[in-house]
């Protein structure tokens, strides 16, 4: 394998946190409220992940995301469990791709419960497809400096004699 012994990999104990043990249908059912509830943690993690492009550097942010998700689903469980289960069941069984369009009634029931008991509103349509600006405290990773090659061919001096090409352009049909 390409991983040598001097590459730092976190210990298993550093990486073990309580994971979200939910089915796909349940995650889909809670997706919109979850995305709104954990927006800051999610944005922080995704920005880190795409800026650093290295899973090792964003473990803390990832743990925050998972902790926030756990907190959200615990809240839902305590406040709107039956509505949530009803909606998740509908999403699971109505279509093959966890489609939302067949479950508007149960969705309305869940939304009402979320708004009344947790004060969480369903975000606008297409909210998570929009580009967003995130303000973070984490410093930006340094850009890779431009490579300097000591044995590169030196460029023409500024005052060099620049004659026209002897045989014209190779791309004469494009340039003339």
């Amino acid at each position, binding site marked *: 394998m390409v991983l040598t012994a001097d*590459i730092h990999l976190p210990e298993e104990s550093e990486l073990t946190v309580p994971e979200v043990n939910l089915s796909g249908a349940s*995650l889909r059912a809670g997706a*919109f409220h979850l995305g709104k509830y954990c927006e800051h943690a999610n944005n922080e993690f995704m920005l880190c992940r795409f800026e650093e492009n290295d899973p090792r550097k964003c473990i803390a942010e*990832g743990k925050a995301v998972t902790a926030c998700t756990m907190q959200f689903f615990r809240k839902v469980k305590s406040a709107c469990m039956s509505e949530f289960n009803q909606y998740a069941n509908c999403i699971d069984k109505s279509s093959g791709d966890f489609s939302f369009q067949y479950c508007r009634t149960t969705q309305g029931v869940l939304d009402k419960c979320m708004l009344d008991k947790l004060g969480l509103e369903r975000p606008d349509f297409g909210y998570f497809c929009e580009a967003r600006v995130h303000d973070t405290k984490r410093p930006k990773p340094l850009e890779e400096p431009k490579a300097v090659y000591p044995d590169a061919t030196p460029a023409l001096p500024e005052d060099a004699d620049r004659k026209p090409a002897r045989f014209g352009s190779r791309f004469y049909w494009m340039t003339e």
Partner: protein
Amino acid sequence: MDCAVARKQDLPPPGGYRPIPYKRIPAKQYFSGYAMFAGFIGMTTGALYLQYLTYKQIKKHEIEMRSAKMAIYPMLLAERDREYLKQLRRNRDAEAELMKDVPGWEVGTYYGEKVYKLLPNDTLVEPIFHEYYAHTDPKEWYKRAYIKLMS
């Protein structure tokens, strides 16, 4: 003359043959040309309108599905990253354990020769699929590689 038998000459039937039906009888025309053009344009317009409605509906559905995926993606990615790093460590340990009796073998290299020589130290190069599954049961490899064909 010995033509005693009366011969009957082959002649047209009395009153002559029926006339040869050569006259063109065109099929009945329900619509004139202009009506056909108008019908074509009308039907196309109607169909385009229906397609516009369906297209809008499909796009809305796609956006909603994508939104839901994007909303849970950070959580899934965080979980995946942790599990991935754990597995990388397990793989490296398995390689060290497997090759401990081979003199001169260094983990992650070919007898000390690195795969990527110019990368800065401590750069995580993600192993390719076959390397990642090198220390598992081939069955697991097969399951993962062809999971889409089986499910």
